[in-house]
């Protein structure tokens, strides 16, 4: 639809398709009231919106942490509505949550290992860890350090690294840059962009740091009050006066 104008591969079918979902935490109260979005292979898609709009809730719905009451979620043409976390993982989706999610007493290496918890082939795990450590030299330096003692930026990096362990088809990132110094933020965004270019990583992310987030994104969605309110290419949204005024702070 609108998003397709700027889409990287217009002909390709979406990898993830969220169709008009309703979901919430209480039985009688919906937080998401009809959210639809889609992500095509090798795309970076960014979701922005005010606090409490329900952005994180969308992720939770995809990852089986909250009940979807209505609507469907299709991934790779399979219906994964109401999947459990391990089902989502098996389907090829990994997640970097909004708040820290490492095993603080385990080493960096062990944390990466846990990223492949569902894999039993030891050699493959080893290969993947080598690959990730290669990708993030900073982590390689600290492979033996306990995750809990690393700085905020390093922890974020480790979380992203762990999410990539699984060779996911789609990574969900909830505010990957929150709380990170500009240097690291840049590095993270660049890194995401690079991974997207080099290995075709597909990313769906939420960002409050909307300008930078939209800059590296192919497309973006604006969510407000549990509903879609705008969508378009990253640049379109950045330049849309309404969006700027209401969501980007002028």
């Amino acid at each position, binding site marked *: 639809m609108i998003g397709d104008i700027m889409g990287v591969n217009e002909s390709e079918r979406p990898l993830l398709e969220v169709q008009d979902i309703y979901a919430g935490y209480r039985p009688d109260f919906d937080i998401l009231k009809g959210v639809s979005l889609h992500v095509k292979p090798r795309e970076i898609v960014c979701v922005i919106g005010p606090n409490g709009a329900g952005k994180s809730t969308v992720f939770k719905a995809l990852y089986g*942490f909250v009940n979807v009451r209505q609507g469907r979620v299709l991934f790779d043409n399979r219906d994964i509505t109401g999947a459990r976390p391990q089902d989502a993982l098996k389907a090829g989706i990994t997640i970097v*949550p909004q708040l820290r999610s490492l095993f603080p007493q385990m080493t960096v290496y062990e944390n990466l290992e846990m990223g492949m918890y569902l894999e039993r082939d030891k050699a493959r795990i080893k290969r993947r860890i080598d690959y990730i450590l290669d990708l993030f030299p900073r982590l390689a330096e600290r492979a033996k350090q306990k995750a809990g003692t690393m700085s905020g930026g390093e922890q974020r990096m480790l979380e992203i690294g762990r999410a990539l362990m699984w060779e996911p088809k789609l990574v969900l990132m909830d505010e990957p840059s929150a709380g990170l110094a500009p240097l690291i933020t840049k590095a993270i965004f660049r890194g995401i962009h690079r991974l997207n270019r080099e290995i075709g990583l597909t990313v769906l992310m939420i960002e409050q740091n909307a300008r930078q987030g939209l800059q590296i994104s192919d497309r973006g969605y604006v969510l407000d009050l549990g509903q879609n309110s705008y969508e378009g290419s990253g640049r379109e949204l950045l330049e849309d006066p309404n969006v700027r005024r209401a969501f980007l702070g002028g």
Partner: protein
Amino acid sequence: MRTLTEIWKRYKLGPLVLILLVLFLFLLPLPRWLAPERKLVSNSLLFSLTQLFMLVTLASDWNMTGGFTGYIDFGHAVFFGIGAYGAGVMMAKAGWPFVPALIVGAVAAAIFAVLIGSATLRLKGPYFSIAMLGTFVAMREIVRVLRPITGGGSGLTLPPYLNRPLFYYVTLILAVLVVAFVWWLRRTQFGATLVAIREDEVGAEMRGINTTLHKITIFWIAAFFTGIVGALWAYQNTFIDPDVVFFESRTIELVMMTMLGGLGTVAGPVIGVTVIYWLRDILWSNFLQFHLLVEGVLLIVIVLFFPEGIMGLLNDPSATSLGRLWGRYLGEGPKDAYQSTETETSV
């Protein structure tokens, strides 16, 4: 109907006060019907009610620290014991009359609460619980070892004085007093502060709350009332020894009753105590062999299905439907597992 619910929600405590008042008015004249030929009230019933009032007082005391402040005290009965022994020793060894002895017991409990509280109230969660449990067990053995003062394991015999109506009145008034106190407390900023401490102690401290002072204050107040009950109990029981006074399951029963009623609510302990006391009565007269077993099963069922206690049910009547209950058992659907808990900064 809507306004009614709103009033209930807004002044959560309003109807409770009414109920309590009615109950009070009803209970007050009970002993007057005591004339045996009329058979309305037997001494045994009075005795049961006296026990009930004591339990209400104890549970409300426990609720002050456990429910409001969030410090789950597994050794609360230690204050009961100190109250009992304080009064008992003064009466049996020093020959004091009861009232001054009771004051000694209650004050001793409060002082001990300040002392032990300044050490243990720095601990969090289960660590506080176990430290208090340890204090409780240690105190029992200390009392046992201090044979010359406390009579050791053989205990102390107090002059029997078994005026049921008197004990009835005294414990009733005490219970009403304590419940009213808690009710008033919860509405003051002091009470709100206690809840704040329960929710985030470090945060509260940094927002200007002298948490130590608040915790110790409520701790000794609770201990003081508990000490009074201990002294009354000792006098009524006519003899004390370490094992009957420092009775392990006393505290955990208080916890259980408070939970059933509603932790951290004013009416919770009253309701919980009454229901369990009454339930027990039915159980042991019907299942002589199995009553404890049945009680255990009931306890589990209660906790599984009514984690917020009876007060929780009152506030959310829809939660009673069978489907909802089953849902609760199955675990209320997916949890918000996504937002991880933060670590604490040390003070």
